[in-house]
């Protein structure tokens, strides 16, 4: 089952590369996306820790994997339908590389979700970098080259640092006289005996390496460029899928530190990273003239919220797990609708884009509602998860953190609000918005459904869903 989950998009990607027709090739996306989603449901229904017999115990499914798989699969499935509409509009540009890379990207993200060997996890995360770089370059202009180059170099170097961190963890086991293995269960089992200095050094490198990929400030510099220049649907997959996968790698790191009895130090580092990310986001969101870059800073902010949630622990951990899902789907709504607005106006600068509500009414409403959702307004899902994290902060007695958290969130709400409102409302400028793009159900249906899901998550969390998040949170609550 897990093998099928990995091989389906991989074969899809290869098939897409071989298929000659630009018109029919995109159809592979929803086929693989839906198939992946169905398989994901089967895998989630499976036993407690399922593993793949062929690969020893390098691949297996634990509650984190289930959560991340579900997030990635839902998001990709939605984006694949949207891609049909988008690629039909861009038919002249060709899509062989784009479709193949999208599917390989999905395969790499799934592999990262189920990897139970640090080396394999690294390989998968690096594969997401190289598979997604051509996606960012799809618009083929100077700005997108610049964004692609920055993304490629920064993330590759970041990931190389993570590899160094992994080697340090292995050295910690060697120096601690334990069995040298990077298999995840072996590490968790033996971590208590590892040499502390090497383990801590390894943690720092892993935090910086995977943190670059997740986009914590001040390692986030590739984010605004990549999200700003990539097509909307790639932005959605990066902000919702890739960052979640990178965050999963960080959660694994935290698990190791917990097992070694050094969780407190790791959590302090997470808390610091989280607060710095919130502060950076708050500073750059204000008067941001480009609404796609605005979303990138929002992504930095939400990575910060996730880190704080995990760092504080207790009920906030549950909030963070829930927030992973909410953040990914809301980012999907925002990026997909922002992509529609961008195409209609052929610009993404505030001042040139005004009155989107009159020209692209559905996308503009979705963008507005997505903004309300991501900034934590009730009744959407992110409100519940952010509120849960906040409750965790205050019950944990971290009053200063709580105060800063609320302050930054308020600043970001105001900063984002002024940009979003001026994009959505007002009167369109003359001669702007005369592109031939028109909204269709293909490009507005997906974000609408995603919005409905986060609305549902805000109003009612079914028992099976609650269990999914609670199981994942429980992995971080094991106190040695």
């Amino acid at each position: 089952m897990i093998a099928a989950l990995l091989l389906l998009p991989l074969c899809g990607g290869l098939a897409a590369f071989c298929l000659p027709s630009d018109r029919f090739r995109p159809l592979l996306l929803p086929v693989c996306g839906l198939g992946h989603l169905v398989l994901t449901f089967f895998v989630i229904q499976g036993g407690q820790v399922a593993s793949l017999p062929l690969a020893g115990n390098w691949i297996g499914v634990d509650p984190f994997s289930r959560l991340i798989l579900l997030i990635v699969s839902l998001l990709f499935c939605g984006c694949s339908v949207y891609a049909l509409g988008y690629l039909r509009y861009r038919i002249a540009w060709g899509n062989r590389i784009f479709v193949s890379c999208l599917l390989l990207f999905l395969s790499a993200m799934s592999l990262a979700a189920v990897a139970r060997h640090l080396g394999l996890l690294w390989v998968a995360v690096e594969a997401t970098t190289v598979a997604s770089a051509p996606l960012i370059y799809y618009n083929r202009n100077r700005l997108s080259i610049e964004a692609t180059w920055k993304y490629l170099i920064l993330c590759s170097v970041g990931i190389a640092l993570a590899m160094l961190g992994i080697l340090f963890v292995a050295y910690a086991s060697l120096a601690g006289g334990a069995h040298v293995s990077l298999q995840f269960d072996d590490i968790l089992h033996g971590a208590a005996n590892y040499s502390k200095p090497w383990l801590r050094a390894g943690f720092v490198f892993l935090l910086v390496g995977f943190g670059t990929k997740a986009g914590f400030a001040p390692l986030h510099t590739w984010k605004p460029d990549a999200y700003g220049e990539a097509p909307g649907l790639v932005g959605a997959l990066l902000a919702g899928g890739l960052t979640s996968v990178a965050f999963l790698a960080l959660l694994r790191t935290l698990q190791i530190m917990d097992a070694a009895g050094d969780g407190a130090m790791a959590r302090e580092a997470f808390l610091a990273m989280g607060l710095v990310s919130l502060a950076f986001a708050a500073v750059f969101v204000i008067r941001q003239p480009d609404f796609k870059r605005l979303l990138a800073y929002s992504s930095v902010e939400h990575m910060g919220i996730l880190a704080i949630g995990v760092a504080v622990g207790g009920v906030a951990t549950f909030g963070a797990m829930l927030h992973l899902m909410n953040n990914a789907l809301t980012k999907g709504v925002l990026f997909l609708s922002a992509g529609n607005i961008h195409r209609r106006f052929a610009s993404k600068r505030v001042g040139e884009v005004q009155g989107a509500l009159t020209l692209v009414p559905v996308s503009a409403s979705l963008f507005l509602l997505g903004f309300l959702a991501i900034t934590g307004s009730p009744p959407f899902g992110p409100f519940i998860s952010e509120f849960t994290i906040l409750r965790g902060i205050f019950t944990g007695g971290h009053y200063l953190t709580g105060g800063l958290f609320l302050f930054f969130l308020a600043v970001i709400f105001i900063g984002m609000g002024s940009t979003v409102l001026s994009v959505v409302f007002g009167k369109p400028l003359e001669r702007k918005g005369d592109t031939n793009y028109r909204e269709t159900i293909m490009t507005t249906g997906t974000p609408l459904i995603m919005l409905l899901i986060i609305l549902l998550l805000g109003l009612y969390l079914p028992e099976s869903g609650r269990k999914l998040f609670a199981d994942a949170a429980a992995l971080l609550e094991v106190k040695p």
Partner: protein
Amino acid sequence: MDNYNPANLLLLLVILFNFFLLGSSRLNACIRTVAIQGGILSLLPLFIHGFSGHSLFLAGGAFLLKGLAIPFLLLRAIRQVHIRREMEPLIGYVPTLLLGTLATAGAFIFSDRLPLIEAHRGSLFIPVGLATLATGFLMLITRRKAITQALGYLIFENGVFIFGMLLAEAMPLMVEAGVLLDLLVAVFVMGIVMHQINREFSSMNTGQLSSLRE
């Protein structure tokens, strides 16, 4: 220490190549040097772990990729774009060489203080690994051409590889292969992007990649 002798000689060569890379402005020579450095590193597993299947595979794979395939891709990239020299580094060659020397000296002093296990005490692997990491970082920071930045990344990866030599038993073959394959594909994609940079900007200076900023 004694049974590491041939390996130690290779590691000292690696350090010499680090200095050459920091001081040279000819891109062609730089790429070839990185290739030789990669080729030398690929011999290390044979010296430390003997002629087992694992080390033969690792040595062969690393030699093919680091010594042949990746340099070939990069040489092709610069042939297409007709550049020979790195003209204006952000920091001059002599200052970077000095910084490189300081970093190497620092690496040797620092690794004396590390809590290493008995077998690795006094071994050259750790200081040379650290020095190579520092060289890669210096290249990444001080050079402006896309190709020299890619070289910096490769040198950095070489540093990680040296460190990984000490821990070969932790990395199963499949993972090792995956790591090398990822590296190859990453350089392949970088080569394509470099080509595009050159086509759009008619130079490969990343200094021109500065429109995206706040």
